[in-house]
């Protein structure tokens, strides 16, 4: 809707305003998201501590703020829902209603719906056609909770609101027609009646109801939504809406529509105002002040009369003087400060002189224009950084780290090729300085990317509550170490796996309260979500005190699924058997619940964690509970690798997998059936040859160089040609046609310009 503007806009101004409109909508969406999140957690808090006044206040404030901002946009359904929710929360705040699980569910569902609409508004700029209907059904649920008595109050409050500022759009556009038929009575009742689609089945006769409206002076029948195409047309679905103007009094009209309160919106308006043009402001009307000025004067009169303000009238004086200046009328006040009496006389004087005859009816305000006009850039400067910029910075730091690696090569060259020891030493000294600075820089940039895990954890109380309620289980969620920080990418990547682990605990681990009591456990189960930093890693644990994982069940399921044969399975210890849940395609769910067991199992969890260079462990004590531990690197920008040489070519092996490096006699590698193994400190370690894996010919060195690696839970010895040095690299994943290349996790550029291929050992072993 265009701004009522005196001069037309230039194309550039139009474009600027369109951009501002988009800005404002984006700000609304983002802010609403944050407010909804806050409201969610306040609501859960409130459910736990029903007497917590701060929680109800916070919840109310969030909903209130959403409503306030939503009014700037064309979102009637969202406002309708939020308004009903606010009424309910208002009653809770006044202690008229207390929270219970059912009410929490209803409120959560409402918040969810608003969240969904918010995203729809972001994507499409509008809400779906059925939104209003959904909003009404939420509103009637909330109103039912408020009870009959409050219902009337809530409804009349809603109607008062209409009286004030919001004349329905249709009444404005049809205003002149309506006032032409009105018989000159001051007030008219405006009714918008939108029957339910299925109203015919409920015995309603909407046309009859509309025609029988007492005092009917104007009726407009239209459709609620565009008619569907021929074959989808349902003759039994009501798609009509009625706009009615009545000159009967409001109580009568309200009584007439008493059976369809949810389908009617009542507004009382002065009929004269219906024909009033929009631009009433800043125009001296009929020789008097503009109606807003009169309103403002009356407000000052009112303020002056309030006992509490006595003696403090400086603001009223300023307002009065400014008003006169603005309206270009002489101010009846003398120079110098005026007292309350003088002000009162001046106001009365101005009102008497200037108020045009019959302007009482003009206090009706025109309908608000909820168009989206935005102007100029925001005055708020925020120091917000796009993630892309931080990523660029991180990449540059990474390249600096790599570039500095060239200096030791240069130092070596200075000595060996140019014979200058001194130069070599100086280069090494400079290298030490650059090395220190680049490390500090790297830490500083990494610090920007660090986020507390609370950003990740805050979604879980809701999840746990919902699932527990659905399954009729009693669970207390304990969260520890929320302030632990980790790299943003890691935190974000963990959301899904952690959700899955928690769902597993709730679905399979934690028992129904009755079962727990029989087992002699506390009725309320404890689910602990814990984060802490461990050296260079961040550890996240999910600990439940449920029934644990039954190793026999896992064994039989593994056989059933064809993952292992019966013989192998029986050889596994209980602790080993439990680890089978990490195998792809494994699920212990008896029946596929709608929560977990959708084919995304622990193997998916492991895959995500390992992609970030971490690992998952699982411990289960039968009858006592399960602990799942995710261990991830704190940051992922710089990887330390050990370089290995193969046929003159360098490869990288992630340092964190390397347990030790040994050189052994070729003869000590024993052949066991089809595979090879070596006995090292009484441990049999299977051997893999990198030359075989890379498709190179074997060679026969005097001593075999073996890397002892720990991959997952297995120890493997890998025979290579020779060890290189350890170095920090920035791993660049393959892209383009190489993206699907298996066996390698990426490349890095070395200080001397060579390209290092980094092996993905988990894949090739």
């Amino acid at each position, binding site marked *: 809707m265009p701004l009522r503007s*005196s001069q037309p806009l230039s194309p550039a101004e139009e474009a600027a305003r369109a951009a501002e409109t988009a800005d*404002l909508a984006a*700000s*609304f969406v983002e*802010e609403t998201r944050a407010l909804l999140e806050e409201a969610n957690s306040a609501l859960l808090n409130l459910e736990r501590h029903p007497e917590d006044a701060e929680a109800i206040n916070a919840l*109310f*404030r969030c909903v*209130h*703020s959403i409503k*306030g*901002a*939503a*009014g*700037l946009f064309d979102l009637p359904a969202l406002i309708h829902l939020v308004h009903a929710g606010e009424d309910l929360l208002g009653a809770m705040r006044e202690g008229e209603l207390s929270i219970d699980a059912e009410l929490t569910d209803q409120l959560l569902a409402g918040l969810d719906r608003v969240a969904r609409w918010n995203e729809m508004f972001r994507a499409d700029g509008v809400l779906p056609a059925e939104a209003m209907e959904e909003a009404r059904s939420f509103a009637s649920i909330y109103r039912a909770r408020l009870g009959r008595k409050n219902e009337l109050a809530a409804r009349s*409050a809603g109607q*008062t*609101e209409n009286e*004030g*500022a919001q004349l329905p759009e249709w009444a404005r556009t049809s205003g002149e027609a309506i006032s032409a038929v009105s018989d000159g009575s001051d007030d008219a009742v405006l009714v918008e009646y939108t029957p339910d689609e299925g109203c015919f089945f409920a015995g309603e006769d909407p046309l009859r109801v509309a025609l029988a409206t007492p005092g009917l002076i104007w009726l407009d029948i239209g459709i609620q939504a565009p008619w569907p195409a021929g074959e989808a047309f349902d003759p039994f679905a009501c798609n009509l809406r009625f706009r009615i103007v009545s000159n009967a009094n409001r109580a009568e009209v309200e009584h007439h529509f008493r059976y369809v309160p949810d389908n009617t919106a009542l507004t009382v308006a002065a009929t004269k105002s219906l024909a009033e043009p929009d*631009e009433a*402001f*800043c125009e001296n009307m009929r020789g008097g002040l503009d109606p*807003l*000025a009169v*309103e*403002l004067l009356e407000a000052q009169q*009112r*303020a002056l009369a*309030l006992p*509490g*303000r006595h003696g*403090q009238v*400086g*603001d009223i*004086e*300023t*307002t009065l*003087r*400014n*008003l006169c*200046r*603005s309206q270009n009328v002489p101010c009846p006040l003398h120079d110098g400060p005026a007292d309350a009496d003088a002000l009162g006389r001046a106001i009365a004087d101005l009102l008497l002189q200037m108020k045009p005859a019959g302007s009482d009816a003009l206090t009706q*305000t025109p309908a*608000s*224009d909820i168009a989206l*006009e935005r102007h*100029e850039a*925001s*005055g*708020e*400067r*925020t*120091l*917000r*950084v*796009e*993630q892309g910029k*931080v990523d660029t910075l991180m990449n540059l730091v990474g390249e600096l780290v790599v570039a500095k690696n060239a200096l030791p090569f240069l130092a070596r060259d200075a000595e060996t090729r140019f014979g200058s020891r001194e130069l070599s030493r100086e280069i090494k000294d400079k290298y030490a300085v650059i090395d220190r600075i680049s490390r500090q820089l790297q830490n500083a940039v990494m610090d*920007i*990317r660090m986020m507390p895990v609370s950003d990740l954890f805050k979604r879980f109380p809701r999840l746990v509550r919902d699932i527990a309620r659905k399954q009729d289980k009693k669970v207390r969620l304990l969260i520890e170490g929320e302030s632990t920080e980790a790299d943003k990418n890691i935190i974000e990547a963990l959301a899904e796996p952690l959700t899955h682990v928690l769902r597993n605990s709730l679905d399979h681990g934690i028992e129904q309260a009755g079962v727990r009591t029989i087992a002699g456990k506390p009725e309320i189960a404890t689910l602990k979500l814990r984060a802490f930093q461990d050296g260079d890693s961040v550890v996240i644990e999910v600990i439940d005190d449920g029934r644990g994982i039954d190793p026999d069940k896992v064994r039989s399921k593994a056989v059933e699924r064809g993952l292992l044969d019966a013989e192998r399975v029986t050889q596994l210890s209980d602790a080993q058997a439990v680890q089978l849940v990490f195998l792809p395609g494994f699920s212990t769910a008896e029946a596929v619940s709608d929560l977990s067991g959708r084919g995304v199992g622990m193997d998916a969890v492991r895959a995500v964690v390992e992609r970030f260079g971490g690992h998952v462990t699982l411990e289960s004590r039968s009858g006592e509970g399960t602990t799942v531990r995710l261990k991830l690197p704190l940051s992922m920008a710089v990887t330390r690798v050990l370089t290995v040489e193969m046929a003159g070519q360098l490869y990288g092996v992630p340092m964190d997998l390397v347990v030790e490096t040994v050189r052994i006699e070729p003869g000590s590698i024993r052949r066991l059936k089809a595979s090879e193994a070596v006995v090292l400190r009484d441990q049999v370690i299977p051997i893999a040859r990198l030359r075989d894996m890379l498709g190179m010919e074997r060679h026969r060195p005097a001593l075999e160089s073996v890397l002892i690696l720990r991959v997952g839970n297995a120890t493997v010895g890998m025979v290579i040609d020779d060890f290189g040095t350890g170095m920090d690299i920035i791993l660049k994943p393959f892209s383009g046609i190489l993206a699907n290349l298996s066996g390698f996790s990426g490349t890095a550029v070395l200080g001397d310009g060579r390209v290092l291929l980094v092996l993905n050992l988990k894949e090739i072993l």
Partner: protein
Amino acid sequence: MTMTATERVPVEANSTTSDGAQKARILIVDDTLTVRLYCSQLLKRAGYAVSEAINGLEGLEQALHQRFELFVVDINMQKMDGYAFLAEVRRHADLRTIPAVMMSTEQGREDIARAYQSGANFYLTKPIDPTRFLATVNLMTGVPCP
């Protein structure tokens, strides 16, 4: 996706009308970013200088450090609500002569009475009607009608 490096800090911004004349300085106190953004854009385009505060406490701090000709104040805010903010303003010798508009979704007579009681000079109901809002600001700051 954005990362917030620091808290949002309201920053004072000046602007002038197209004819170069400086209009009044206005302080918007509202905890809703979207509303602040909207009002501030509306006012700046009309040539006002605008500052923003996210609650009464911050508003008071700004009001004590620079001169404003009008306060536009929301009611429901954390830390210090609009009523308390105005009550403080009216108590303070340097601020009590500055007019204030309250602007909120509260509809009840009691809320409006309380607004005037706390020291408001006018009350506007959200959602904001831009024409009415600007006309009110013009009137209260003495800007002649075009």
